């Protein structure tokens, strides 16, 4: 705060003349010699650049490099060209993992956006009770994924004793095997993901809804538009930018789904919930197929980059 006090008069200690406010240029007061001026920004950036270099860029580039080798600890890596890629993509397990990942990403993103939109319509508003309800509904989002997975493992316990199954029993339904049958496991996993991400989308939609000019509604109402027409012609068009962002970011995130799958089912039963990352983890860390795992990771990385660039390009074009 000493600064604000000194500001009108400059530092009393320094005998240098004050600069008139108008012609101060960044270099005018005490120009440093050239090299410290050039070096300063890089010194401030150095820690981050080193960390990114070691833990992001090096692994990414090394992964790309390794994907062309058979990785043999102690024996030296052997160049195999595109073999890792072709082995991986002829592996039926990987193909079904890719399928599960894509289905999982599309369905959970769409479902949680839809549910989040519904929640936002229901819980949007300044009233105190709505705020409390929104806060309560948001708790799944901040709960650690591992805790969520353990919780749902317990709730979905197969057989009549499981929480959800005993509830279903009261309604005369079930018991469902949920996670323990290959037929229902992927759907169960997706249900849990939607439970965790729908309130997140809700908050984004609430912000989007709050930004809509209420006069549009008034105008529509005067024109005699019913609730459905107002939703279709006022609300949805106004929310379009928000929606596209929610959807595209969600799909990019969905491609690297790991924790929930690994904790809930470990990819099973019978590979029915295997995703790309659980597959590479198993191939790389457990089966020691580091070259092949790197090849799959490389492709996943390139797809992520491509999708992200498309999103950025699309958003920029919209804004321009």
């Amino acid at each position, binding site marked *: 705060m000493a600064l604000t006090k000194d500001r009108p008069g400059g530092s009393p200690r320094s005998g240098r003349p004050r600069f008139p406010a108008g012609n101060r240029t960044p270099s005018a007061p005490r120009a440093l010699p050239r090299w410290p001026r050039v070096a300063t920004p890089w010194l401030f*950036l150095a820690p981050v650049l080193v960390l990114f270099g070691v833990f992001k860029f090096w692994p990414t580039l090394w992964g790309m490099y390794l994907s062309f080798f058979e990785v043999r600890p102690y024996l030296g890596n052997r160049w195999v060209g595109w073999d890792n890629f072709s082995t991986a993509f002829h592996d039926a397990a990987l193909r079904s993992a890719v399928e599960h990942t894509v289905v999982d990403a599309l369905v959970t993103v769409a479902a949680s956006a839809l549910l989040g939109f519904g929640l936002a319509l229901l819980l949007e508003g300044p009233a105190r009770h709505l705020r409390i309800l929104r*806060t309560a509904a948001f708790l799944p989002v901040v709960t*650690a994924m591992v805790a969520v997975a353990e919780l749902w493992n317990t709730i979905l316990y197969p057989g009549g004793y*499981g929480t959800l199954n005993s509830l279903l029993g009261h309604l005369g339904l079930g018991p469902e095997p949920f996670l323990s049958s290959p037929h229902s496991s992927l759907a169960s996993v997706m249900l849990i993901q939607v439970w965790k991400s729908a309130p997140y989308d809700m908050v984004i939609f609430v912000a989007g809804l709050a930004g809509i000019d209420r006069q549009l509604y008034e105008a529509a109402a005067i024109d005699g538009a019913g609730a459905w027409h107002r939703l279709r012609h006022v609300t949805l068009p106004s929310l379009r930018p928000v929606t596209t962002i929610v959807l595209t970011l969600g799909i990019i995130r969905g491609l690297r789904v790991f924790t929930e799958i690994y904790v809930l089912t470990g990819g099973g039963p019978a590979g029915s919930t295997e995703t790309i990352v659980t597959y590479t983890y198993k191939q790389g*860390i457990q089966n020691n197929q580091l070259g092949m795992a790197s090849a799959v990771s490389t492709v996943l990385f390139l797809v992520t980059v491509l999708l992200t660039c498309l999103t950025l390009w699309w958003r920029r074009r919209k804004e321009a």
Partner: protein
Amino acid sequence: MSSMSAPTTALGLRMPTKAWTRTAVRVVLYAAVLFVFVMPLWTMVATVFSGTTLKTGQMSLFPGHFTLANIRTAFRFGVGRGLLNSVIVTGVGLFLQVTVSAFAAYALARKKFRGQAVVLLAILATMMMPEEVIAIPLYLVLGKVPDPLGGSDLLDSYSGLILPVVGWALPIYVLTGFMKTIPAELEEAARVDGARDLRIFFQIILPLCRPALGTCAVFGFLMIWDQYLLPLLVASTPHMYTMTLVVTSLSSSQEQGEGVRMAASLMLMIPSVLVYLGLQRLFERGMLNGSLKG
């Protein structure tokens, strides 16, 4: 925002006060929301403190008799160590993350230099290389980098759990955006007084960034506290397990009932929920900045 007090909903429905049926429908829907999103979390609490298990019967929503047995058992199976490790990793990691991000943001927001665009692009690029996508080579890299705390490599060490989460693009973006809004006159005045960059950074820019730093702290906390894949790659002895690993290791050893697993999960969950409830405003603002403006 113009007509906050007008009785219109998001859909533009007018809500006449006499239409009590509409109110009733709303209340039912509110109840459904609470049932779906809060009840599961409540069953967790109830299971931990009621001591009922699947084997003895249905889980109850209201603890018949209150017990701490599950918590005590959980501590016997490594929860204490897990909490300690998580607190160390999150505390040190968050401190370093915010510090180095603020340094980088200062250079990006307040300086013009050759190569700035390249640095920004590189930071953006790291958003596309999350651990999940580079897990395998990251694991190999961790086995090659010497531990600054003295070990031969980063595997099974605190450095390995901490350092990879320190560099994160999100706080750099948040802080860069915020620092750009600080008027240049403040900095120039200090420069006239003879202050150099470090002094300007610590005494002027950083104190003014307090709201943005708060947002970064909330996000950083949740991100580091919830880490699972990185500890899974790094920690090979239970000694180095973080809370997330302790929870999953409890579930793979079957002899503990779900009461004990829920107790560990609850202790994993409570800190993030408390952070969120305490700093909700900061959190929501940051979330919207992050997701809408990228």
